[in-house]
């Protein structure tokens, strides 16, 4: 009898185990991108491209640890096991590469692959130069000037100046298979049968419709071997289409459900996943012209905006109020003197102090906003509320809505063009994944348009000094301290109207298990299962 029971138990156990092993399923994701992000290595469609295509098929030398949601995602060894700057020559970085890694096509990963990938981005006369991919990522590797092989598993990068930001650049350089490229000798063909080292490999590519990937069973990191068998990516730019596709069971995961659908989705048993990540939604002000040239007026505007109201009433808590470039709890937040809360009385007092008056001498400004766009959340509704908030304290803002693409084009050109001369601000959302994106490109005097995107322009020698110092500081905690001081300075100067930080909502079917939403723009899909 005992033996029978044991046998039965063993049978049940083994059955359930095999059940587990084959029931890991397929995850179908509805992306906001209007097309399948470029699969030929240096991907497009911004960080959504990196999120679902770039970092799934390929890997960088230095990667993001996306396995936890309780801290800002840190950089960890990827295809490089370690790296360090040469003490004697701080413009040279030595990377020790991981051994025993193979590309999806079976060829080995080594120093040649790193040099090849680098040249595809930076060496314009190389036969394997990829002009399209280069345009997508080259500027993220701005400080890198060269790489050479020391031995099969060691490479040395060179930079144009001593900079501690190198790891924050190398993390965007995805390593492609030179062997696969030699087979096809054309980046478009490579993109149709791509080969990287990442946890997923492409099995089917239907342009503009779907990309199918399967688990890379040979993935080098046994802890991160995908638990599900298949990943399907579908471009769905229309929010209502994404919502309908999720609710009708055509996909298991959608990015950015419309905020007003969230209570409904929750009620129907769907999971809503959210977390803070380096995103801010702001009005970037023009500082060389009235009225925003006056710091008191800028502070007044920051005190006039009801951020809690925007998050609660408009966005169903899919965002948190922003009182600076980064959010509270972020290593660069520091201790700003001003904490911008909703305080219309204070705003009015500041305006009065600045010499303005709601009835006799109101503040007038023209702000360019978009009608939609990646990361822009609900720009029209949010801006109408902000306009009302500002009007209440005596700031008359005329909102000029344009299409997203137009807004980006006009913004890049700066305020001093014929089109933009009449403007006083633009409403664009940003990332602050690393110090240059967060601060350097906006607040350094050397980043004024057209070099980078300091459009305001914000010229502050103290800020320049802090940014340069952070760049020269190779010790990360010390660097964070310097950036926190910079952040305190920027918050006090208020060159932006800080509004909200998005919480990156996504809706998942109840069948999706094991997903942890990191504090990042990217995701780790290896632990996810679909039952």
């Amino acid at each position: 009898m005992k033996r029978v029971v044991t046998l039965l138990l063993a049978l049940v156990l083994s059955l359930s185990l095999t059940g587990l092993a084959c029931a890991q399923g397929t995850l179908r994701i509805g992306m906001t991108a209007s097309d399948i992000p470029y699969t030929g290595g240096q991907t497009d469609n911004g960080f959504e491209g990196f999120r679902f295509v770039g970092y799934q098929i390929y890997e960088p030398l230095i990667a993001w640890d996306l396995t936890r949601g309780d801290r800002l995602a840190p950089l960890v060894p990827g295809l490089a096991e370690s790296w360090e700057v040469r003490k004697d020559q701080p413009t040279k970085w030595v990377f020790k590469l991981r051994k025993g890694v193979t590309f999806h096509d079976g060829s080995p990963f080594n120093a040649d692959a790193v040099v090849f990938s680098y040249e595809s981005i930076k060496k314009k006369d190389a036969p394997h130069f990829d002009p399209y991919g280069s345009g997508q990522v080259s500027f993220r590797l701005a400080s890198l000037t060269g790489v050479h092989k020391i031995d099969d598993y060691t490479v040395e990068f060179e930079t144009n100046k001593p900079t501690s930001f190198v790891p924050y650049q190398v993390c965007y350089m995805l390593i492609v298979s030179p062997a696969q490229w030699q087979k096809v000798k054309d980046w478009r063909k490579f993109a149709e049968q791509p080969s990287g080292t990442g946890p997923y490999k492409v099995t089917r590519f239907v342009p503009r419709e779907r990309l199918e990937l399967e688990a890379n069973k040979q993935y080098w990191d046994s802890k991160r071997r995908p638990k599900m068998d298949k990943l399907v990516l579908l471009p769905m730019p229309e929010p209502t289409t994404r919502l309908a596709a999720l609710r009708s069971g055509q996909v298991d995961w959608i990015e950015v459900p419309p905020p007003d659908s969230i209570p409904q989705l929750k009620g129907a048993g769907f999971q809503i996943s959210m977390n803070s990540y380096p995103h801010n939604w702001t009005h970037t002000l023009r500082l060389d012209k009235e009225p925003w040239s006056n710091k008191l007026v800028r502070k007044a505007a920051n005190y006039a905006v009801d951020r809690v109201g925007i998050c609660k009433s408009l966005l169903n808590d899919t965002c948190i109020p922003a009182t600076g470039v980064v959010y509270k709890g972020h290593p660069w937040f520091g201790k700003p003197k001003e904490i911008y809360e909703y305080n219309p009385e204070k705003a009015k007092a500041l305006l009065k102090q600045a010499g303005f008056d709601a009835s006799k001498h109101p503040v007038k400004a023209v702000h360019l906003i978009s009608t939609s766009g990646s990361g822009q959340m609900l720009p029209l509704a949010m801006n109408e509320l902000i306009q009302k908030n500002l009007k209440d304290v005596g700031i008359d803002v005329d909102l000029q809505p344009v299409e997203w693409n137009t807004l980006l084009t006009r913004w890049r050109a700066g305020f001093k063009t014929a089109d933009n001369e009449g403007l006083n601000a633009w409403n664009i959302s940003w990332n602050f994944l690393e110090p240059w994106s967060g601060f350097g490109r906006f607040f350094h005097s050397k980043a004024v348009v057209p070099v980078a995107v300091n459009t305001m322009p914000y010229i502050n020698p103290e800020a320049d000094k802090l940014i340069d110092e952070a760049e020269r500081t190779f010790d990360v905690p010390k660097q964070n301290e310097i950036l926190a001081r910079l952040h305190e300075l920027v918050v006090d100067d208020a060159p932006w109207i800080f509004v909200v930080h998005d919480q990156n909502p996504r809706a998942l079917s109840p069948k999706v298990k094991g997903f942890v939403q990191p504090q990042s723009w990217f995701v780790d899909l290896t632990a996810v299962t679909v039952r």
Partner: protein
Amino acid sequence: MWTYAGRRLLLAIPTLLGASIIVFAMVHLAPGDPIAAVMPAESSQAEIEATKKAYGFDKPLAVQYLVWLGRVAQGDLGRSIATRRAVILDVRDSLANSLVLALSSSLLAFGIGTALGLLAAFRQGRWLDKAASAIAVIGVSVPHYWAGIILIIVFSVWLNWLPAMGAADGGGPLAYLRHMTLPTVALALIPLGVITRVVRSAALDVLNQEFVLALRAKGLAARRVFTHVVKNSAPQIFTVLGLQFGFQLGGSVLVEAVFSWPGTGYLLNLAIFQRDIPVLQGVILVLATFFVLLNLAVDLLQTLVDPRIARH
């Protein structure tokens, strides 16, 4: 008739050239540019300028247009900026999908619309006539993208009977049929309304002519009278059918966007937002060609059906 067809074909060339110039001008006059659309939001003006140069978008517009035209004359529609695929491939795939929808929705609309219109004409003033007119009015007035959204909510979200978006998930003909059902219905609404009304009034016109009275007075069976009426109203109906089919092909942008149906409308929509000029030009050129040819075919068909329409 063949000289007529030849002349019409020759006349199509300036029409198409004109269409391509208008499209080219409109795309370039609209704010935003193709390179900025595919470059990351964070890239600076300097980087954009460099990429523009690499793609030849820094040349004067007239030069860009002539370069494009020269390639089209050799049968090369260029490459998409966003996907770097040959435009001809994108156009081919999407056109096939759109033709399927245009055909299925046209058949649905023509079938039901003609039947309803004829029934209404022969039962003028009765409840069937009123019902048909009501259906026609609804068909013409309801925005089809709105109808599409309602169809999705009812049949995909609530009832879970039919898929909400996409073509087939590589699942074979049955899956394809399931996917095309809702967009077909949504797309059939407008032509259904138009055709019902046109057929009804065309048939009524003929019914009110004296020869019908004469036929009836002669004691011809109702069925034979019906055949005569249909034959006499056919030319007018054909014109509308042809035009409607053309509209179905080019006018499905909104429905295809709502259902993410990978046809020409969806492709156009994408290309507009990505400022993907080669794709935009290619799709519009091909659609315009289709429209011209379709009109010609309808004209020729009319002369075949009704020899009274003399062509010179």
